[in-house]
């Protein structure tokens, strides 16, 4: 686990790049809409978070050059590698989601009725994005044109999560008991578990360069 934490201490500039991205896109949106209806707020939030997540996660595996990767290969087991990257991305995207919420709330108002529910939804969403995109980034790093490939390939994998999240968010616009969210949240979490399991079992095959 210590190796995980060691490996996580990287790419601090990623955070600042993403903050800049979120700020600028939100500012553009702010200029375009004078008032936002709640549904539009939700849709915009998730679109921006989605693209920021794609930007963020694609930095996972693509920045490394082959020398560094060879060094890592000697040093740590593939399981530690993929887990640490996933953990890093989860934390990064969690921060991103919270930041987006703050910026959106600040500029465009906060139509969600319950902050607790929104925290749960946005963090589950961020986790789901992070896990899926880390895995896709690991796969895309093997191909030539990895930057664009990552985006193209990441999108279909992410879309089901986005659909469920938007559905949940729309429900969060009204005051509803928690049981309404239960099934879908459980669905999202089980998708996360599946992704992590598949990654743990199959990442070693990718790692043997």
């Amino acid at each position: 686990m210590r190796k995980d934490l060691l490996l996580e201490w990287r790419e601090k500039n990623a955070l600042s790049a993403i903050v800049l991205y979120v700020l600028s896109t939100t500012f553009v949106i702010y200029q375009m809409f004078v008032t936002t209806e709640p549904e539009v707020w939700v849709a915009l939030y998730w679109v921006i978070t989605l693209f920021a997540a794609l930007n963020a996660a694609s930095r996972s595996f693509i920045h490394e050059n082959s020398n560094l990767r060879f060094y890592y290969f000697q040093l740590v087991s593939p399981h530690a590698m993929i887990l640490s990257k996933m953990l890093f991305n989860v934390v990064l995207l969690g921060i991103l989601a919270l930041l987006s919420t703050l910026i959106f709330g600040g500029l465009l108002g906060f139509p969600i009725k319950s902050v607790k529910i929104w925290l749960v939804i946005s963090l589950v969403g961020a986790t789901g994005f992070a896990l899926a995109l880390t895995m896709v980034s690991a796969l895309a790093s093997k191909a030539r044109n990895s930057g664009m490939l990552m985006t193209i390939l990441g999108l279909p994998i992410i879309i089901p999560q986005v659909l469920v999240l938007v559905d949940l968010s729309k429900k969060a616009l009204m005051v509803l008991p928690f049981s309404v969210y239960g099934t879908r949240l459980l669905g999202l979490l089980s998708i996360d578990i599946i992704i992590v399991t598949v990654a743990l079992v199959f990442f070693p095959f990718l790692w043997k360069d």
Partner: protein
Amino acid sequence: MPNFATPKTKALLKGIYWKIIPIAILLYVVYQGFLSDAPQLEILEETVRNLYFHVPMWFTMTALFVISLVFSLRYLRGQKRIDDLYAVEFANVGLLFGFLGLTTGMVWAQFTWGFFWTWDPKQNFSAITLLIYLVYMVFRNSITDEKVKARVSAVLNVFAFSAMVPLIFILPRMMESLHPGADGNPAFSGYDLDGTMRTIFYPAVIGWALLGVWLTTLRHRMRVIKDKLYEIHN
């Protein structure tokens, strides 16, 4: 697990005898399907005949994707190129049947629900599954090194399959939907099918599935030949 590349299995797969079965079955299904009586229900009326086409397409796609997964796993274990070629061809033909299933579904939706696309969860998620398998195809084409290509596509196949299972089988059942098999009910329970329809439906599933396997074996043989040609030339 049996080795599929022995001369005996190859001869078996090439033989004409088992291919007569899907031809016969599908001719029977098409003839009977359109000429026999279909139970008349409100809204569905005659379009229930689409059941002989739409549902077997998806069953076939699922079966082909499962077999593709099996071959991908075999490749990861044994690193034999032929397993990789089988995997990709099963996925290819599975994708074809998936698109056919989606199209038949859309035509059916136009008649019964009024629109080709209704943003229904099952429709959405099955389209997304096909997108994910298309991603698999694009991925394969974007990697040039053969060994890396085979390994990465094997892992991606597992990933795509593990995405398909919740998307098509689990999530739509939990969500509200127009498509049969939602809100917790299974799509096909025992008393759902009329007797006459059953006699046509079950052979239809077998017929379409065998047709899918036949297409795959043809494509696979083409691929093996192309592969050998490249080897000879390079």
